[in-house]
């Protein structure tokens, strides 16, 4: 009788696959890391974009919105909002919230200074130029 499939064999397959696929993933990640700055135009991440991103993060925008499809599904996609609405609309929209329309989803009022809103718009502009493999399918996000 042949030796049969033992527990240590199963364990070795488990550990082997762990190491094997981790190496593959790390190799791919290395390549991705080189590609990302090209695809998202990292050279265009200005100080203003960085400040804008910090505001977007610390006000938990993705608690309602999505950015590249990640976040919450309570409010519209922000990846292409710059192209959908344009900078002037955004600059008017944010300080005008909440709309107060009965029953409609409300966006809070954030007390941003005009300079801060410019930063947010700069971030959204940068975001709209990231190569996301043609996603979202159309301008509505």
């Amino acid at each position, binding site marked *: 009788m042949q030796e049969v499939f033992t527990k240590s064999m199963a364990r070795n*397959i488990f550990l082997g696959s*762990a190491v094997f696929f981790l190496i593959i*993933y790390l190799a791919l990640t290395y390549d991705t890391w080189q590609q990302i700055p090209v695809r998202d135009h990292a050279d265009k991440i200005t100080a203003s974009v960085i400040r804008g991103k910090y505001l977007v993060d610390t*006000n*938990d925008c993705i*608690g309602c919105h999505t950015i590249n499809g990640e976040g919450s599904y309570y409010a519209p996609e922000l990846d292409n909002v710059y192209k959908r609405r344009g900078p002037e609309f955004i600059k008017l929209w944010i300080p005008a919230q909440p709309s107060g329309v009965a029953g409609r989803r409300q966006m809070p009022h954030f007390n941003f200074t005009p300079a801060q809103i410019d930063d947010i718009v700069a971030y959204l502009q940068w975001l709209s130029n990231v190569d996301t493999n043609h996603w979202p399918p*159309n301008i509505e996000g």
Partner: protein
Amino acid sequence: MKYQSQLVAKPYFIAALALFFGQIVFGLIAGMQFLDGTFLFSAAHFNIVRMTHTNLLIVWLLMAFMGAAYYIVPEEAQTELYSPKLALITFWVFLIAAALTVVGYLLVPYAHLAAITGNAIVPTMGRGYLEQPLPTKIGIVLVALSLLFNVTMTLIKGRKTSINLILVGALWGLALLFLPSFYFPEDTVKASYSWWWIVHGWVEGDWELILGALLGFILIKMTGVDREIVEKWLYIIMAMVLISGLVGIGHHYYYIGAPAYWIWLGSIFSAMEPIPFMLLIAFAFKMLFQRRREHPNKAAMLWAMGTPIMAFLGAGLWGFMITLAPAQYYIHGTNFTAAHGHLAFFGAYAMVSMAIISYAMPMLRGREANSVRAQHWEIAGFWIMVLSMIGIALALTGAGLVTAYLQRSGADPLGFMQVQDRARVFFWGREIAGAGFFTGLLVYLRSFFIQGEYQYTAQVKRALAT
């Protein structure tokens, strides 16, 4: 219960269920806000309600996993826990930190919370599931270190079973995978890419190992099937988790700015992610059919059998529907994803937590199984929660498909808010199913307040009489 120190699991389990209750309450509020956008607007805006809902989920699952570890590791190692006192201190630290964090969310505006907790020094806030301020994140690391120290020392001085090695190893993995939460690059694409190390690494990798270990432990105890067989299956299932899931992480990388090759690699490998869940079902039922004893705790057995099935539905089937790149092109970032998230988190991790709680709690309260009446309540709670969660998932799937059809495809796509209005009926469906889930939870929790233990003689008499 064989070792006195296993008792420290009890407060963990109780706190887990209390936090679970809180999670559902906030879930109902968030669901209501989809129907009435002004509901509680000034008191707790949707984003705050949502982060409380998701953070409570993570915390109660971690509580349950920790309780499970403190219960299982000594029993498997056949020795007392290294330091029950440390485990108890850790419990209170974790609970108080969680409570303070939630209070912070509810009372302090998020940007202000970021400002007063030093977020400017090490930015970490503002990512999904990782909304916690810096002190909480550091607290989580300390709690994890304390747990790891305690269980690893226990393991070292005791018997090293595969279940224990897998469980403790997976807990180490859980802690290590949390560390990227301190890395939040200014490049949004890199930030997304690395965020998935934590989220995918936990729920589609490491936690599946924990699930396997907990389920394996319960099945060994309840069916009396030989340990060698259970552990061998576990290794094979977990190998499949890694074979499919490690490169399968690519299914998060299609449309976030990562290179296009992830569309192929992610689709091919993640398409195999349902396989370990199918194996898990096959494994659980094989063990059930080969059982060598009838355990009186029918409720725990139901949870243990229900877990792989619901995990397959939520993580396997619903996950598969959105995993292939062409499908995800239309449903990425819609409520379809939320449907998958709800069914998978509940089916895999909430249910395995309730399975171990169902098995261990009677023991921790000094009996092998609860009275038949208590078990009836628990089983009723099981079915109401499971069916309600399927209802929630179906409703959210409907809402996601409305977005896919009206907003993402067609020559004349509608805007976001218009589409949300069209999906209203599904949001009602979700909220009603959510209320059903809440009812099920109350029924389930009621079972813990029914005293008495399983009466063998009475059951045998009744069985003979019929």
